């Protein structure tokens, strides 16, 4: 631990932004080279959201009640499914070790990877959700609130999920272990995210929920990079 802090002590801003930019550009390039994989993840989101009316009822009242929760739960699952992509390929071919050995600050490097993860999974979901929300009898304002909540909430999912993804590197039981670690931590995001639309429906302002999501995002942005960097170092020990 002590040398971990020593090497990351007070890096200058240029080094941080260079490391962040490099990791972001690299992971985005890799993600965009396998567009099919990104498409499959979005299709997963669309299909899960479309299955709920079949499982429950096509009536508008039922769907309107379920809508925000279904769109958010599916976003959680889509994020969860894409988490192994963050580190596991780099871990198995040794790239992650080289990244960790670099003199650039590791928290900035993993932040770039998390940003790329959000841009390729969370952002498309947030853009797609208002379109799918039409299936659930949501009106224009509600769809706007849903999109705003997802834009604030999905980065938290990427940040928290990255901690779990790094912790489970090299552990047995991969995906289902990751779900057990990460999904309980997602609970507050789900509550406030789905609650934003419900608040609006109850005639209240969605402001408190959106503010709490923003606060959670700031907390996660400040803390998660260091937790992920520590977890990566633990995995590489």
């Amino acid at each position, binding site marked *: *631990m002590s040398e971990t802090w020593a090497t990351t002590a007070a890096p200058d801003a240029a080094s941080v932004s260079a490391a962040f930019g490099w990791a972001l550009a690299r992971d985005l390039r890799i993600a965009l080279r396998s567009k099919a994989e990104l498409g499959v993840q979005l299709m997963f989101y669309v299909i899960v959201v479309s299955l709920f009316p079949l499982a429950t009822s096509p009536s508008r009242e039922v769907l309107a009640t379920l809508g925000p929760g279904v769109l958010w739960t599916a976003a959680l699952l889509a994020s969860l499914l894409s988490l192994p992509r963050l580190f596991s390929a780099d871990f198995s071919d040794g790239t992650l070790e080289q990244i960790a050995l670099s003199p650039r600050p590791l928290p900035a490097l993993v932040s770039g990877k998390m940003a790329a993860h959000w841009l390729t999974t969370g952002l498309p979901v947030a853009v797609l959700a208002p379109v799918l929300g039409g299936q659930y009898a949501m009106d224009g304002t509600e769809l706007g609130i849903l999109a705003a909540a997802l834009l604030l909430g999905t980065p938290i999912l990427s940040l928290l999920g990255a901690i779990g993804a790094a*912790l489970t590197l090299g552990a047995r039981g991969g995906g289902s272990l990751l779900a057990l670690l990460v999904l309980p931590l997602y609970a507050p995001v789900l509550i406030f995210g789905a609650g934003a639309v419900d608040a609006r429906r109850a005639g209240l302002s969605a402001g408190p929920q959106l503010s709490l999501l923003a606060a959670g995002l700031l907390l996660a942005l400040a803390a998660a990079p260091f937790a992920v960097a520590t977890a990566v170092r633990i995995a590489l020990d």
Partner: protein
Amino acid sequence: MIFNWFRYSSPISFYPLAGRLSRVFGVLAVAFTIAGLYIGLVVAPTDATQGDAYRIIFLHVPTAWMAMLIYLAMAFWSALALGFNTRLSAMMAQALAPTGALMAALALWSGAFWGRPTWGTYWAWDARMTSTLILLFLYLGVIALRNAIDDPRRADRACALLSLVGAVNVPIIYFSVQWWNTLHQGSSISFTSAPKMAMTMVEGLLVMTAGVWSYCIAVTLARVRSIIVERERGSGWVASLIAPQGAR
């Protein structure tokens, strides 16, 4: 004499101390529990509104408290383990996790059997129940991560980090769930106002709490002794510890 706080930070000197403390707290646990159950089941009066069903409180509330407290203790030892890279702190965190999970499960289970006669349902998506359920999931996650990593030292640090992340999240989960839904009765005991229950009930509850607390300490220390022996089995002092019994 200056007490050396670090004397017991090594497994070899902590092992016999843990054994003595474990026995002391084991005896205390039995004594407190018998006294607490006697007060709770015999002395305490029947509740005016809930009848005798309320007596589940003497198990329910202490276990619910311990479930939260043990998570804090686990996070404390995890912080020490991660910060100072000490082996024994990580073993303490490892030993606490199953007991914490047991307490959370007992709180939920006893709560379900209390909810049935008073609320008319075993389970409701009430704030405290939901956050206790999520707490149980967090415990199970730590235990599962421990089992999924073969190298014990790596598992120590990974579990320590997960416990700390969970500890930051526990209050957030608690308050988020509380705003989401609340059916649970408010706290019956508060340090800032007079108790809303009969004095004998409070006494029974506090004695049972002492009993559950002692049980948790005794079991955790007994478990940490097993973990020490298992992990240090290659070292000379564990071999000499086991040898006389084997020769007998």
